[in-house]
């Protein structure tokens, strides 16, 4: 029972890890960035290459993944994404799908089509007993990292001036510019940061799942579910949504396996019908 709850939480964290960068690029910047998975994949593959080819430890792989994806994000933002901020959501969808296709082919070219995995460092491998339930150490590790990231991010967004300037820029970039906000820089920084988080998410997720060039498409649905159920205005929203989805999915599959495949989608649809803005948004009506 407790193990199931814990597994659910851990699965929720996996979902959250996959989507965390998207909370920033889609959630905060309101950019339909379906290429999120490509940045996550970049972080994942970088970690794999560092570990498997150069024998660098996983602990260094994580920050490296962040930096690498952030740099990649910054470059792409400056060259490509800037042209898209003022376009429709639909154009953004098409554009980012285009990037996904390109990223899949590039990774395929350099890394091959087959699945790749890593072996976790011994300290993160294995299971320990918590309150009588046996839990994977790595899963605890992700829960802790995600929790900390969520708190930090939420603080930055809600409480700092940078956060309010960012939201102002998203609300109305034109007017924000006219009132002295350097929208370009703010967006570039935020995008790079979001991409970095995506990369970090990718690096964390390969502790649980394997990775292959179809990664950005395969998991796209999952990270979109997290964001839409959690709402796009906060970081805590998707965090709670991941927990809810994770626990419901795992418990559902454990206790009523016949409907296992439907649970997550059904929850999503139900939530979105009852609360179209997401489960955890403040009642922003208009």
């Amino acid at each position, binding site marked *: 029972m407790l193990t199931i709850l814990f597994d659910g939480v851990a699965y929720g964290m996996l979902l959250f890890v996959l989507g965390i960068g998207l909370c920033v690029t889609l959630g905060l910047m309101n950019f339909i960035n379906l290429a999120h998975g490509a940045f996550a994949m970049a972080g994942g593959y970088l970690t794999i290459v560092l570990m498997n080819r150069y024998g660098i430890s996983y602990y260094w792989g994580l920050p490296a993944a962040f930096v690498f994806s952030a740099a990649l994000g910054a470059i792409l933002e400056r060259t490509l994404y800037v042209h898209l901020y003022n376009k429709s959501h639909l154009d953004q969808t098409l554009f980012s799908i285009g990037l*996904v296709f390109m990223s899949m082919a590039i990774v395929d070219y350099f890394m091959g089509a087959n699945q790749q995995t890593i072996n976790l460092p011994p300290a993160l491998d294995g299971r320990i007993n918590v309150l009588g339930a046996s839990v994977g150490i790595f899963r605890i590790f992700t829960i802790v990292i995600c929790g900390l990231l969520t708190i930090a991010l939420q603080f930055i967004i809600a409480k700092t001036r940078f956060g309010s300037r960012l939201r102002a820029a998203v609300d109305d970039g034109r007017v924000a510019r006219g009132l002295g906000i350097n929208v370009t820089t703010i967006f570039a920084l935020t995008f790079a940061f979001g991409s970095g988080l995506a990369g970090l998410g990718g690096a964390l997720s390969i502790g649980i799942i394997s990775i292959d060039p179809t990664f950005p498409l395969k998991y796209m649905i999952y990270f979109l579910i997290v964001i839409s159920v959690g709402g796009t205005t906060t970081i805590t929203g998707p965090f709670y949504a991941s927990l809810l989805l994770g626990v419901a999915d795992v418990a559902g599959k454990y206790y009523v396996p016949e409907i296992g495949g439907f649970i997550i*989608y059904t929850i999503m649809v139900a939530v979105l*019908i009852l609360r179209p803005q997401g489960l955890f948004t403040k009642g922003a009506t208009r």
Partner: protein
Amino acid sequence: MSGSHDKDLQSASARLLKQSHSRWYEWLFWAVALSLFVIFGDFIPGVPTRLMLLTEIVTLALLALSIDLVLGFAGIVTLGQGAYFGLGAYVAALLAKGGAGTFPMSDPVIGLLIAGLVTGVFGFVTSFLVLRGSDLTRLMVTLGVALILSELANQMRWLTGGADGLNGVMPSAVLGIWEFDLWGRVAYLYSLAVLFICFWLSRRIVNSPFGLSLKAIKNNPLRARAIGVPVNARLVAIYTIAAALAGIAGALLAQTTQSASPDMIAFHRSADGLLILVFGGAGYLYGGLIGAAAFRVMQDVIGNITLQYWQFWLGAVLVALVIFVRNGIIGMMVAGWARLRKGDGQ
């Protein structure tokens, strides 16, 4: 102004009416579509047969057309049109299989109609889910419906054949006269005719008062309500119609490929449909048609050059298209045409 008042009114009405008249380039478009039959139908020695590809394009075009109705005109972002496409495919396939290739149950035309009806009903039922929410919400709700349906198709093995798909799908000859052939000749003409009829209907719809109210809803639902537009009813209506069209598209594909499998209902159908539409240009009706042709042909051509990495080039084209062009291929053509005319004027 009041002097020429009467004449003025005359022209206002006439001008509106003129918008719904067909233009020469539309006739050209359909003439080209028809002539492709002769060119690629294995009538000319040395020219490869591509009617199967063309048929596939036609079904995709119909799918994209149905998305255009909800997205381009009513402003509902959907990533779930694949659900109706797939449902239509299964219905048509089951009918063809059930009738074991005999008239009337296996007749493709009857199959199409029933598939359209069933998906229309299903579209009506599910349309209530997309009435509220933002772009992202609708995207996810429609996607959710499609995912649930595709999981159902996988689970209801007794009916759908599960992941193996249905086999032994043998539609009878079209109207009992034209047998589907190995070259895909009948398949192409048949699908093209269906596309044409569906297109013509859609065209009437968007140029009608009903179509106008859809555009208004897309622009500003709050205001539309305030002047008495029954927003929900209109959205339900167009969503239902579009679902039926998507179902017919799916049925076409099932009949012309004589199969139905879970990937007809899978996520990538919806995604392809949306991509194709945006690629071609949403809100023009022809966008989906031209987009489907351009997209598939490009995929085919690049795929022949680089078998494994065509996705890279396809992605690059998408990226470039969005950055440099507004409103897809048609948007590009419209802008080019405007520039050309202006050049003439000077």
